[in-house]
């Protein structure tokens, strides 16, 4: 396989594109709303109308507005004479929402001048127009189960370019200059991490993709894997070349069967074309990827616990240092990055470090994908440049709370994060600003809460989560979270005194500073942030208890 062959596949794929594209979302949200049946009946409707020559029905990845699924997008027009002009990508198509299988004939009917009563979405609304797709540029456009579709979208050209024309040092330099930071939450500079693994000594090295998206309320990794699995594989292969690894693992949650299935298909297809395996693109670089399926343990998102799980052990974290970069999987130097981090690599290589560095804020470059959910009108995925104000995301893109409710807070970063009150919504979304507000970027879940939400209850909910998920290895986390949960329950039941509140705060500090891994260290965060902004709710519950 060489570049000419790659371009030939892309050319062939584009030439086979029919003038009208009917795209049916086949990502988790829409699948659970029966989109598979919708696609089938769209196929049947095309055959019935005799339009097979001109209309192509494709199952694609996430189209982002999950709450209105199943989503179907129709692009292009049926022409009477045969068409040789491809559909311009820039023109907006028609988006149909909440499609049921019975709607298919009337949707296809519109192509030949018919009318339809199916609910139409507005692709020009702020939810879509403020987005800046880099990670999700192919999502909802390419067919995740066909490698040709990804290649036609310039896929694997970056990998070819890297293997044939660049040294590993060049690649690391490009990633460092791009300013990309880890998208798993902590925001460690990706280039620095790669350089450390590249420098580490070891006869074998590993590359791991952390797809153990355990944060409740976060689904962007799932969506990326389901919509564009090849993008992640390409990023991993480039990373492996840069650090000198020949074996990669993708650690995915078992709760994501569609993502696992599509990854398996993607790996098989890439191997068949010689894009994964030995002597990739006829270079001297070998790279093999295996999937490891998780078994339900939140702590496995922590890198040392994740590696223990890949080795077939209980997912218990180890104290660091040594960091995985020096001594990781089976003691060898290991590079671990999040799904979204790998998904950013291919565009950086293709378009250059300067292009990427020009997006975002001074310290947080590029875009971030957020999963917008909770009490909000438009739930779904958004990708916006770093630094976008929270208010724009929640009120303008998300459309605020449905039925005229008022936003009270936004919870970011899952159980490790915190609640940001509506009064701080003018703050831009980047690593530093969120940390200043006592929350964190986390993997990118954003849960909107309205006025009816009880913040003490929210803190208790997260503490219950951490208590259940604590692996039990270190005492502060194992015992501390149970006691914190107990105190929070006492407060929310109106049975607590001011002494309990003081105890709560003190214990939070202890758990934070003495736990072994990130789970325990960040478990008190939801309590800290609700105490910081909503202390009156705690006090009201205590006062109410004192009266009884």
């Amino acid at each position, binding site marked *: 396989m060489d570049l000419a062959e790659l371009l030939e596949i892309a050319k062939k794929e584009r030439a086979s594109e029919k003038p009208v594209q009917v795209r049916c979302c086949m990502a988790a949200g829409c699948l*659970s709303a029966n989109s598979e049946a919708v696609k089938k009946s769209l196929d049947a409707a095309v055959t019935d109308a005799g339009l097979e020559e001109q209309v192509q029905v494709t199952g694609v990845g996430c189209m982002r507005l*999950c709450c209105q*699924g199943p989503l179907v997008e129709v692009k292009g027009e049926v022409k009477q004479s045969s068409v040789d002009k491809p559909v311009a990508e820039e023109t907006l198509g028609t988006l149909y929402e909440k499609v049921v299988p019975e709607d298919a004939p009337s949707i296809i009917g519109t192509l030949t001048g018919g009318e339809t009563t199916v609910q139409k979405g507005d692709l020009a609304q702020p939810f879509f127009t403020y987005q800046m797709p880099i990670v999700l540029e192919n999502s909802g456009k390419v067919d995740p189960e066909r490698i040709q579709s990804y290649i036609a979208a310039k896929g694997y050209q970056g990998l070819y370019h890297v293997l044939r024309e660049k040294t590993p040092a060049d690649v690391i330099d490009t990633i460092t200059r791009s300013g990309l930071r880890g998208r798993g939450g902590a925001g460690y500079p990706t280039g620095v991490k790669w350089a450390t693994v590249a420098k580490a000594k070891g006869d074998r090295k590993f590359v791991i993709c952390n797809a153990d998206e355990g944060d409740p309320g976060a*689904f962007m990794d799932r969506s990326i894997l389901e919509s564009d699995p090849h993008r992640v594989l390409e990023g991993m292969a480039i990373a492996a070349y840069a650090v000198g690894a020949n074996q990669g693992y993708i650690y995915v949650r078992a709760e994501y069967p569609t993502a696992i299935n599509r990854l398996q298909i993607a790996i098989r297809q890439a191997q068949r074309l010689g894009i994964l395996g030995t002597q990739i693109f006829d270079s001297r670089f070998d790279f093999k990827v295996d999937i490891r*399926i998780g*078994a339900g343990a*939140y702590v496995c998102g922590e890198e040392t616990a994740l590696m223990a799980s890949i080795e077939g052990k209980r997912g218990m974290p180890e104290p660091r240092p040594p960091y995985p970069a020096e001594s990781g999987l089976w003691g060898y130097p290991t590079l671990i990055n999040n799904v979204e981090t790998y998904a950013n690599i291919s565009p950086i290589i293709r378009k250059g470090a300067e292009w990427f560095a020009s997006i975002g804020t001074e310290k947080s470059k590029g875009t971030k994908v957020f999963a917008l959910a909770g009490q909000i009108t438009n739930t779904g995925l958004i990708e916006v440049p770093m630094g976008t104000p929270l208010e724009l995301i929640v009120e303008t893109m998300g459309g605020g709370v449905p039925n005229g409710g008022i936003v009270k807070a936004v919870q970011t970063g899952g159980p490790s994060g915190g609640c940001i009150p509506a009064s701080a919504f003018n703050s831009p979304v980047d690593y530093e600003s969120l940390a200043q507000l006592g929350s964190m970027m986390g993997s990118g879940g954003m849960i909107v809460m309205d006025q009816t939400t009880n913040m003490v209850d929210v803190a208790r909910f997260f503490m219950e989560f951490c208590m259940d998920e604590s692996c039990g290895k270190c005492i502060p986390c194992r015992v501390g979270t149970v006691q914190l949960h107990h105190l929070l329950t006492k407060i929310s039941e109106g049975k607590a005194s001011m002494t309990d509140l003081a105890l709560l705060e003190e214990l939070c500090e202890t758990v934070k500073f003495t736990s072994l891994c990130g789970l325990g260290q960040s478990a008190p965060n939801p309590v800290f942030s609700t105490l910081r902004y909503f202390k009156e709710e705690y006090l009201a519950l205590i006062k109410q208890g004192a009266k009884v």
Partner: protein
Amino acid sequence: MNSASAAQPKNSKTASSAIHASGDKRFKMLDATIKRYQYQQDALIEILHKAQELFGYLETDVLIYVAQSLKLPPSRVYGVATFYHLFSLAPSGAHSCVICTGTACYVKGAQTILTELEKSDNIRAGETTPDGQVSLLTARCLGACGIAPAVVFDGAVLGNQTAETVHDWIHRCSAECTKEG
């Protein structure tokens, strides 16, 4: 059964086509998986996944069998099987109903569904209905937050659920069983 019996000789056609020594075909299928992973001890979790898929849950015999096949101490296999939420050491109901308790589902009423079920059906999360028909489980987050609250009925995810819809489904399962019986 010892570990040697798990490694069937390649050339023996009769051995591979005959049923497993235990008389249970499922062990033979488990053997095939173990073999595919070349008896690697680090494939333990993958093999337990397969075992649970075959047997429905991880009974003690199966755990011992896996331990012997991989030459691992039984304590290690038991330790792993009990550490992860998805492995179950007890038989489950004929049907399963998994309620997502992720944050998005939580703020949209998943907790209410659970409390209502406790009241109306007298069943708690992690339990199976007395007729053995439905196991009620919870999941940490299904990643289907756009359609919260989400519930998985026998593997099919449905969104925007309420206590009534879940209650009705559980009753339908029980009713079907009575009809068949």
